[in-house]
């Protein structure tokens, strides 16, 4: 499907809505250390990633995330020998089932948090982040915007400079020392180039009234409408409900020495509603779309 991968959640809403959502869901994920809550959050993050980033890039990410999770799960028993169900003994180290479960839970929290951050970065582009801060700190926002321009430019120019040197074959460094000095040379060229450009940039800012007003204003790319305040109230309520539910679930749960019983299924409903909100919205948006 051609549209896969370009479907940001909360499209068409003021950026403050996705910002509140992702802050809330990441907080709930990191604070609720209980297998069912973690499982729900992980599933929700995966669903959201599939809905807005597409299958290919989600799988590409999982290629490194799953091994890391596995490593954490397997490493935990080595460091914490607690629990009551002995699985096996590796020399002096005893591996308990509870300890393994704890590790698996920790690995899942890690993957879920990474996935939520990836989802957030897809929804909250730099433009949207700036729209959040623009009203309160226009100058900070401007500086963020300038940095966002300069960093990729520096990388691009670095490639251009080293390319220009290595394309000139007679002047190509032949020794290891020569190659090392050519890297230093690249940074020297970049430094000179950037300093020179910054003088022009400063002139360009002055020519357009830099410092003329007591206080800078901000261009508003996004309007905050009634719809947005309704959505924001909804998201905040959901986050609060999920937070309470997750707190109840995780405060009544212990891994050690024996895993305690889980709360009844309906105790997780708010967490599930929160975790699957963006994917449900995306799915609903796609199914309900009429041309």
């Amino acid at each position: 499907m051609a549209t896969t991968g370009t479907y940001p959640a909360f499209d068409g809403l003021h950026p403050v809505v996705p910002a509140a959502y992702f802050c809330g869901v990441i907080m709930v994920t990191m604070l609720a250390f209980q297998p069912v809550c973690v499982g729900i959050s992980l599933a929700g993050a995966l669903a959201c990633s599939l809905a807005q980033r597409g299958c290919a890039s989600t799988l590409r990410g999982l290629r490194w995330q799953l091994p890391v999770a596995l490593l954490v799960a397997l490493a935990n028993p080595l460091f914490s020998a607690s629990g009551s169900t002995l699985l096996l003994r590796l020399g002096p180290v005893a591996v308990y089932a509870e300890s393994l479960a704890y590790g698996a839970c920790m690995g899942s929290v890690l993957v879920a948090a990474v996935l939520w951050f990836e989802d957030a970065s897809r929804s909250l582009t730099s433009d949207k982040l700036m729209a959040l801060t623009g009203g309160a700190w226009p100058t900070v926002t401007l500086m963020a915007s300038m940095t966002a321009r300069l960093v990729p430019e520096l990388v691009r120019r670095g490639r251009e400079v080293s390319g220009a040197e290595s394309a000139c074959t007679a002047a190509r460094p032949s020794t290891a020392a020569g190659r090392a000095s050519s890297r230093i040379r690249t940074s020297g060229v970049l430094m000179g180039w950037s300093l020179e450009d910054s003088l022009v940039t400063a002139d360009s800012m002055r020519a357009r009234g830099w410092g003329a007003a007591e206080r800078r204003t901000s261009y508003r790319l996004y309007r905050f409408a009634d719809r947005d305040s309704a959505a924001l109230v909804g998201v905040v309520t959901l986050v609060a409900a999920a937070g309470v539910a997750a707190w109840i679930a995780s405060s009544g749960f212990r891994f050690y020495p024996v895993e305690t019983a889980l709360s009844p299924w309906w105790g997780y409903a708010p967490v599930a509603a929160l975790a699957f909100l963006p994917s449900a919205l995306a799915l609903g948006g796609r199914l309900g779309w009429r041309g």
Partner: protein
Amino acid sequence: MEGLGVRGKALVMRDVSFSYPPAPGGGAVPVLEHVSLEVGEGAFCLLVGHTGSGKSTLLRLAKPELALAGERGGAVEVFGRDVSRLSVGDSARLVGFVFQDPDAQMVCDSVWHEMSFGLESLGTPPPEMRRRVAETCHFFGIEPWFGRDVATLSGGQRQVLALASALAMRPRLLLLDEPTSMLDPVAEKSFLHALFRVNRELGVTVVVATHRPWPMVDYATCALEAGAGAVREVALGPLRARPSLGVPPSPAVPDAEAVRADDVWFRYSRDAPWVLRGCDLAAACGSVHALVGGNGSGKTTFLRLVAGLGRPSRGRVRVGSGLSAHVALLPQDPKALFVCDSVAAELREWQGRAGYPDEDVTDVASRLGLSGLGATHPYDLSGGQQQLLALAKLLLTRPRLLLLDEPTKGLDARAQAVLADELWRLAASGAAVLMASHDPNFVRQVADVTSMLFDGGVAATEKTPSFFEGSVFFRD
């Protein structure tokens, strides 16, 4: 109104002098001496003159926050107001300024933020700002790329954005310092067209400093020439003349093959669109071969592949036997080659690696007009001199295959003639020259063979005279 002659004066200078502060051990350097001039409201005025004739200084004197350090005298008035008494905000509202470099004058990362930068500085209320940005973008046709990042724009689009973001503040006088010298001729034409509309439709007075007046003469209403500290009015007609580059020493006799590309396919990443799709090309030693074609037709990419800076996804690029150790590439921006503090050191940077004698340095420097500039910092040279310095650096490595990417950018007539001489000399010595260029005037006079790139492949390769005779669209 014009008929009655009561239109005001947009810019008036009375007895203006300026000199740079004295260098250690020297006297003050006068740039302008007792200059008086008037530019009427609604004029499109060209300010011509050679590099170093004080054009930029003159423009900056009318914009106090850009003024250079130095001694000044006389009075500068914009619409009857003394500029030295203008506040920063008033100056921004009254006088817009567009610089030469399309990259460096961008401040923000996205088009919408760049457009609103000036209005944000002036503290314009958001509803008013929204309206002005919308109007200005509509006028310049920026809407399709309003949401894009500045980094993804072409040089021509950036320069139009610089113009638009100055005009969002609704200035009545617009000063431009070599605004098109870093653009290719196609982008230059569309920029000038936008500028023309600003002048005629919006009534904004325009003063453009340039050392290449010929593309602008049709838009202009008057011209001033700066030189030897003075400024005088000149007629527009003679400025129309294009540079003549002289005659090649002898018709080159192409011999061995220097470059052969067979069915080359290339893209920058796995999911990116193809830049080259089945490109075939052969260039011979002893000739100057030009690549022409629009932006994004793959000229730069092709040169990079020949220089070994990338590997074709399919097909091959072969460089003639014995040439691969003697390749040199002149990048679009000569600054990519500058690392030293002086021209002299720059010319010797590769002496150790490439092993050229001191006589060569002196010889090349004098041929390219860099002799007296040994102690100058490369960044203090004009754009054209920078281009020639970069070329000199490459020539010193004695290339047998010279690749040039838009070598005529920013060159005035004199520097173009110097460049043409060097390319002919190189070809006559049996080396191969392959250049990507947007400049039909230069290609027509200098290249032996011309290939046109289109849609990722070579659409035509012909001897240059027949290429231009058979073309209706390539006119200079």
